């Protein structure tokens, strides 16, 4: 697993993927910060992170599209899947490498917090809580898009499917407020990662919501292992 993690992390930086991910994240983050905080002289950092959370939906496919679909297309997966490393080791190695890029990107975003701290007021507990939810949601999106990459045949289809499914998850948030059926609304609300993230933004540390993100991540990683294993039985 360690070898896979190291190679994947290096690959993100040897290729354009990490730079695209970080560059677009910080560029759009700067726009949100300039418009939402600087122009309006607002120190509302949770609101800034809420806007930033929509970027996961857009950007996590950049990190995951090559994870399995790219390897499958280049046939480099034959090296991994005929080596003595277990499928779980491969999946965890790749996932943790993507998480490391995400965490590094989040660390760079602390520059915005520094500006708020210099010219306004930062509430450490609330900010920490926001960041926890923000990172948990990003990591859950990574797990989802990794699973989609494991099912896709090419990186482009992996990216398009991942973006589509991410968008659908955002729509669950919108739809849960729009449907009349109470059961459907509560089911959509249960699924929606944005509704799960909302309490973090308010500074409410909810174990149920932490568990939701952790359980969703674990389930999706398990499904990724199963999808890769199933491929051995039916691949043509």
């Amino acid at each position, binding site marked *: 697993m*360690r*070898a*896979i993690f*190291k*190679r994947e992390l*290096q*690959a993100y930086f*040897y*290729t354009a993927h990490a730079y695209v991910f970080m560059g677009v994240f910080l560029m759009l983050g700067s726009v949100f910060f300039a418009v939402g905080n600087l122009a309006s002289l607002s120190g509302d950092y949770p609101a800034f992170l809420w806007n930033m959370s929509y970027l996961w939906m857009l950007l996590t496919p950049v990190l995951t599209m090559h994870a399995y679909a790219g390897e499958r297309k*280049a*046939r*480099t*997966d*034959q*090296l*991994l*899947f*005929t*080596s*003595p*490393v*277990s499928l779980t080791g491969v999946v965890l190695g790749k996932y943790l490498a993507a998480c490391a890029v995400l965490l590094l990107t989040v660390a760079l975003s602390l520059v915005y917090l520094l500006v708020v701290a210099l010219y306004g007021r930062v509430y450490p507990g609330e900010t920490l809580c926001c960041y926890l939810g923000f990172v948990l949601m990003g990591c859950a999106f990574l797990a989802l898009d990794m699973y989609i990459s494991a099912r896709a045949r090419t990186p482009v289809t992996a990216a398009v499917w991942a973006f589509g499914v991410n968008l659908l998850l955002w729509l669950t948030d919108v739809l849960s407020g729009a449907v009349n059926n109470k059961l459907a609304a509560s089911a959509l609300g249960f699924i929606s990662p944005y509704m799960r993230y909302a309490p973090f933004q308010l500074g409410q540390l909810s174990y149920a919501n932490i568990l939701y993100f952790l359980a969703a991540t674990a389930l999706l990683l398990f499904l990724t292992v199963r999808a890769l294993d199933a491929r*051995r*039985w*039916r*691949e*043509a």
Partner: protein
Amino acid sequence: MLSLKGVTKRYGDTVAADDVSFTAERGQVLGLLGQNGAGKTTILSIMTGYLAPTAGTVTVDGHDMLAEPRQARRQLGYLPEVPPLYDEMTVRAALGFACELKMVVRADIPAHVAEIAAQTGLGDMLPRRIGNLSKGYRQRVGLAQALCGDPELLVLDEPTSGLDPRQTAEFRDTLAQLAKGRTVVFSSHILSEVQALCDRVIILHHGRIVCDSGLKRLQSGGGTRLRADILGEDKALLPALRGLPGVQRVTRLPSPGKGQLSVLLECGEAPVQPALFTLLTGMNAPLMRLQPVENTLEEIFLRVTSEG
């Protein structure tokens, strides 16, 4: 070292491998021959654990590929038809990564990489990026990756495919060196390559084994074939040769000169030369040339695949 029992792979209605069984002993070089689509790559993929069989088992050094994949794969080095290479990595990094995957002790990796690079002629290429290498060197890096961890079983899928004649010859020499002391299974549709490298040949046709034999035995065809050039009249000689004890078949060949008969005698295991000399002396027909003829692999291949 390697054992396949009843390996079958189906994709819907298509049977890519049909009840394939064979074993390869330690130190044996085994060539898997077959036309395109015969099932060679499928069998190799199953052998290495990349694909799972629909039915049957694969064991490597006594370890079942599905039940004990880690132990089985530790003994195995695989070079697929398209070498699995990360273009952004240097050769040194790629070999280091392959060593880590094969559980080579971390402290031993630099020395192991240097040794493999020397064996495969990559010594000067270690700092180069794989994406900038020629096809021949990429193939060598693929082979070097397969050698990481010093596996006892090497599985190579069409290892010289796409190489120019010079690269092919060099690659074959490298393979011949590396095969010493290892079990090697490789697939090819280049018959001369199999002839040059293998002790044993398995011919696949439509996913089934249609021939499994040692190369020498295969080439002798289980008997003797002799070309005889005889000075004399064919009308008298041909029936006499056909009636000779031990001769199973007589085929007339183009005559080498006026008044000469040239024939191919297909005989059993027992020597027919004494009876032949006696016959020709009695018929006053001097024997100008008598030469043993081996079955070419091409002939065997065409025969068994057309029968199949």
